[in-house]
């Protein structure tokens, strides 16, 4: 398979958080979900964010993806500072430059698999690039299922459609929030394999939140979070190195 690697338009990181804090609530009930996080995610890289529950890993992902507002600090997507954008601009960014894979309920039940895949393009009023579409559908092994509605697809197949949708608009970054959390290990492994392929062969950038060391081991790099702060960052992770790090965090 020939990879169509997009040439980077700039040398800056695909996504970047600069000294980000996120505070929920006020007064006695105040929670510092992020307490000054700075991190960069390189283009063409598959990164995982890990940490115990309450560490702020999901909050970081939501802020990076423009789904949540930061209390202080900046978020960049490529050269664009999305932390300064209006809701309208964010909608366009989400539509064109970001892909999402959620843990569950990823698909619009009234649309077929293919319609779900092309939904962001349809919302933008764009025609899909048929060659690219064929390629990603091929990548996630969905060719014979795309005309089915979500309720006729298995959980694994639904997640594959979600991955294909995230790829469809050739986003700058794909954000995945526990994409295998609801799947059995075989389907989960499939999804993680497809995402790996998307990075290696299609030149995509993925940032994934997970609590599963096996899933994290598919990534090029793992960033560890605890109590709203970065507390570890390893490259070329293995299941063992990830588990070691996690154990240290637990202490």
């Amino acid at each position: 398979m020939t990879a169509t690697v997009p040439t980077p338009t700039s040398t800056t990181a695909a996504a970047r958080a600069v000294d980000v804090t996120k505070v929920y609530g006020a007064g006695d009930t105040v929670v510092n979900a992020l307490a000054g996080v700075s991190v960069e995610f390189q283009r063409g890289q598959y990164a995982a964010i890990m940490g115990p529950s309450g560490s702020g890993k999901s909050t970081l992902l939501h802020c990076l993806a423009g789904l949540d507002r930061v209390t202080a600090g900046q978020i960049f997507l490529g050269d664009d500072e999305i932390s300064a954008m209006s809701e309208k601009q964010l909608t366009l960014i989400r539509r064109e430059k970001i892909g999402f894979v959620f843990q569950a309920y990823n698909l619009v039940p009234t649309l077929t698999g293919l319609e779900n895949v092309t939904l962001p393009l349809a919302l933008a009023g764009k025609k899909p690039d048929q060659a690219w579409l064929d390629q990603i559908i091929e990548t996630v092994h969905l060719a014979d299922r795309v005309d089915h509605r979500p309720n006729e697809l298995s959980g694994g197949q639904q997640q594959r459609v979600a991955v294909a949708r995230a790829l469809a608009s050739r986003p700058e970054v794909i954000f995945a929030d526990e994409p295998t959390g609801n799947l059995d290990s075989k389907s989960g492994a499939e999804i993680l394999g497809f995402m790996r392929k998307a990075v290696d062969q299609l030149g995509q950038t993925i940032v994934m939140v997970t609590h599963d060391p096996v899933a994290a081991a598919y990534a090029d790099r793992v960033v560890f979070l605890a109590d709203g702060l970065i507390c570890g960052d390893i490259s070329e992770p293995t299941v063992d190195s990830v588990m070691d790090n996690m154990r240290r965090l637990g202490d």
Partner: protein
Amino acid sequence: MWRATLRGLFAKKFRLVLTSIAIVLGVAFMAGTFVLTDTLGSVFDNLFANTTKGVDAVVRAKEPFKASNQAGGGEQTRPPVPGSLVDTVQDAKGVDLAQGNILGYALVTGTDGEAVQNQAPTFGTPWRSPSESVNQSSEIVEGRAPRAPDEVALDLKTFEEGKFRLGDTARISFLTVEPRELEVVGAFLFGGKRDGLVGATLAAFEPETAQEVMNRVDQWDVIEVKADAGVSQTEVRDNIRRALRDAGLNGDFESITGEQLAKEQSDELKKNLSFFNTFLLVFALIALFVGAFVIYNTFSITVAQRIRELGLLRALGASGKQVVGSVVIEAFVVGALSSILGIVLGILIVSPLQGLLSAFGIDLPGGALQIEPRTIVVSFLVGTGVTMVAALGPARRASKIPPIAALRDQAFDGGAGRRRYIWGTVLLVLGVLALLNGLFGDLSGGSAAAFVGVSALLVFVGVAMLSPLAAKPAARLLTWPAIKGNFITGILARENAQRNPRRTAATAAALMIGLALVSAIAIMSQSFKTTFRSAIEDQTTADFILSPSGFAPFSPEAAQAVRDELPGSTVVEYRFGTIEIDGDGTAILGASPEFTEMTDAGVSRRAAAAFADEGGMLVHRDTAEDRGIEVGDVLDVRFPNGPGTLTVQGFFDDKKALPTDADFIVSTDNWDGFPDPLDFYVGVLKPDDVSTKEAAKIVEGIADRIGGVEADNLAGFVDRQIAQFNQILGLMYVLLLLAVVIALVGIVNTLALSVFERTREIGLMRAVGMSRVQLKRMIRGEALITASFGSLLGLAIGLFFGVMIVQAFASDGITLAIPVSQLVIFGVLAALAGLLAGVLPARRAARLDVLDAITTE
């Protein structure tokens, strides 16, 4: 169970409010109607209690016959009593004072030259000073009593409205004598109140003058009696009865107490009020019926959404009955709260309702609001009952939710079973059969109408049950342009409308009802109007027609004036009366002998010439055939004034161009058997040597001068009649609007619940790049599809009913006319209103926070 139910209910205030509105509006309308008619009833009770104030007993002529089929005017059927009878009554034991009284026709022209007339009668009466009068209803408050033939006193309101000062001259018109110029010497209050006459005007004359101007020389309408001190009303009445019997007069005259008279008059009026009450209640019930659909739908959706919760209750050991109970309790609370709110609102809307009726030409007197226990009890029971019945289906479905549902995570409106469609078909067929029986069966008017009403009910429910079948194709058809243009929001809207056909169909059905009724009425009225116009224009050659400004007939003075001022013209007067033929009181039309020259009613030349002979009559051909009446037959009849005979001189074929539905016509020259010569219409055929313009000027001048009369050319007359008809039509549309509004509330409700149910999905779509604008467009699109679907169904049913009903009247010469552009406008307006109903849920959906939405459980 109670506490859990109530807590759940109040946690969802928005839903509660929207659901309530559906019932609140219907109940308010119902309660408002009751309060309004009860208030009117008490106003009239009061009026008639005042009319008979001081009167212990009355003596009057016996009613010659009971009119069973009274078409057209409200001609009184009791003849006057002779003046000499006063002495007989005076001599009866226990009678302190016996006096004749009259309530006749007298129209006052104000100082500005305009007749003082509301939508109520204009009366004249004799005046006696209170110390000498039996009747104590009025007292002079300005000036003095009329004592001479050229003097008059007016009720204070008329006095003020006519802008009179004491000493001014008032022009007053009568039925049988020339108008007179009388000096206004006083003003009086009737019943102690400025508006004690409830809109009527009253002019009082010196008694002998009163007899003269009101066609009662040596006669009275009634004799009023004041009893001796210590003699009760019933005692004096019985004494008078005895005196009448002793004088051999008890065959012609009767006596009743003052209280009886007041009650009789009041009951008579209340009978008319009850028609009015029924008319308004029908619309209130329609509103409640539509509300029932909304309730049904809301409960269906919430049961479907709470499937996990209800499943959990079952898993924890709640029985199916307890689950039903919890839904029914919820319905009861919603119904009871809504009904109470509705009753309060109903009392508040009485005066706006009265204002609305007045805007459509129905002026009603005001009074202290009468809130009867019946109003509260009936409104509460109906409102609560409708809510609970509507919730019964969803409640039963809730009981069938298995405990395992607690573990599944999909909301699911139980699949539409085949049973539903079978029942829907059965109801639809029964409905159509009921319609056919009602329209073409051999039934009386009342039960035919009942059949048509029940048929509409069955058809509505039947179609609503079957409509999920049509929801998908309809959604596909309606969104064809959007799909063609490949607009993603349009496609999503369509898919949403299709995903739950039952929900879409039930929501649309509520709108369907209003549309069906409006379009059926539009078709019927268009057909009647078109038929009326062509009947008048094709069958009448009159150049001008005089007609009443309001509903009250006018003096023959108008016709006489035309004859005098437009010599050579043909002038035809039409009068309405009742007469007893074959023991049956029936309507009869009085027409001037020349009427066949002006109106083509299919009368033979010979009959036209002969019918005006003394004792001559024309009979409608169908009636004649039914009863075996032939030319030359002499029929024994009773006129209001006494028995007589009428000879059948010929037939008429066609009633369409005649002003009443009467089956009998006599000449106005032979009107002696009827109490008063009141004209309802006057047709004028101008002489050839006078130009139309000139003739119009003369006729219009006469109408202006006389007052209470309008003059028009033929087209203008048709326009005026149609305009009056359109007013009532407009009122019906406005009343039906309430049903449409409730249906729109239903759309808001369904969409709001759907948005709530799809929170996660909406979050997802927003996350992958749907803008707020697109989201709103999608939800409004769903509203538009639902409303268009309901609107189309409604138009189809309305078309069917309208056409069928008009067909039923085909034998009366009514021809079908379909107001296509009007129907299209109704349909489009309803669809657009649906779009509007989508605005609120769309805004709510757009306000959802994306992150909250996608992380919702």
